[in-house]
């Protein structure tokens, strides 16, 4: 679960092997292959400290099913707020391994660009990170009792 009024995203369910039986369009196959390759090649440590900016959105309807939700979440965050790579899994409350792999793909396809960040800028970003904020944690408990309309709509659309 997330902070106040946020969408709830859980870890991806166990791998669905049904896709093995269907032929994917080429673009989806390329994304899937690149994703699995990126999972095996961790980002260099210095890359996790760079400030990431969204330049354009990927063609979301042409991604393989299992990547649509995590890519949408990452791009939505960067659309609203340029963020340092290592904070993204904390803000989205999701697997750093998956986020790093997807960030690699988004950077390679030039949808996301990286910049250096000053120490004061980094400190500000960490302070703004909701999951690190105690006030957000208490708000999170309230939201758990009364899900917002945004989270209800998200559940309805994603089944999560």
């Amino acid at each position: 679960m997330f902070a106040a009024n946020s969408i709830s995203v859980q870890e991806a369910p166990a791998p669905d092997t049904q896709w093995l039986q269907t032929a994917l369009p080429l673009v989806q196959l390329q994304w899937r292959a690149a994703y699995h390759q990126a999972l095996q090649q961790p980002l260099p440590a210095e890359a996790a400290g760079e400030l990431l900016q969204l330049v354009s959105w990927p063609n979301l309807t042409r991604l393989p099913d299992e990547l649509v939700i995590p890519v949408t979440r990452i791009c939505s965050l960067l659309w609203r707020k340029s963020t340092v790579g290592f904070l993204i899994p904390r803000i989205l409350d999701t697997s750093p391994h998956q986020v790093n792999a997807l960030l690699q793909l988004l950077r390679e396809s030039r949808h996301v660009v990286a910049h250096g960040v000053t120490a004061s800028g980094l400190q500000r970003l960490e302070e703004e990170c909701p999951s690190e904020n105690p006030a957000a944690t208490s708000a999170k408990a309230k939201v758990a009792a009364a899900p917002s309309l945004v989270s209800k709509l998200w559940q309805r659309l994603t089944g999560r």
Partner: protein
Amino acid sequence: MEWSILFAGPVGAGKTQAIRTISDIEVVSTEALATDEVAQLKQNTTVAMDMGVLHLDGHDKVRLYGAPGQSRFDFMWDILLQQARGLVLLIDHSRADPVADLDFYLSDLLDRMGHRPLPVVIGITHMDLATSADLQPYHDYLSHRAASGLAGVAPIFEVDARHPRDVRTLLMTLTSMLDMFERFPVRSKPAALGYA
């Protein structure tokens, strides 16, 4: 609680179809026989609005409104925009100059929104009917707008309004953006963070 999401765009872009594809109820339409140049595109056209509904837990619902495409019904755009929490803009890629259509509808609708922040998702339809299926001209246009400070980088992707997966992705993206709106009410200014 009830919210509404507005589907807008040119005549024939697939607004009514998209709502029909995902709505939980039979879409309430205000269609009339097309008598002007629209008659060359399709028999009927929306003259006031279309309405579908997504039912959520606890009797909450999201109303999906489709605005008429013709600008002579643009008084409806204001009425529907006033209550919308998000905007889905559909652009027909098979028309003569779809980037000009995007410019017209995006500029006009953003003007009507004024200073009210509203997430916008853009779906490009009828790509199968066009000779070129390239999104780059749209990306170039949006980058130019963003660079001019006219708007942020809006999500843009291919959509087949008949496919539930595509329409769901449009709404999912909008929902995720709304979530970020709530979590980060103030958009960050990257330059203030000290780009190297």
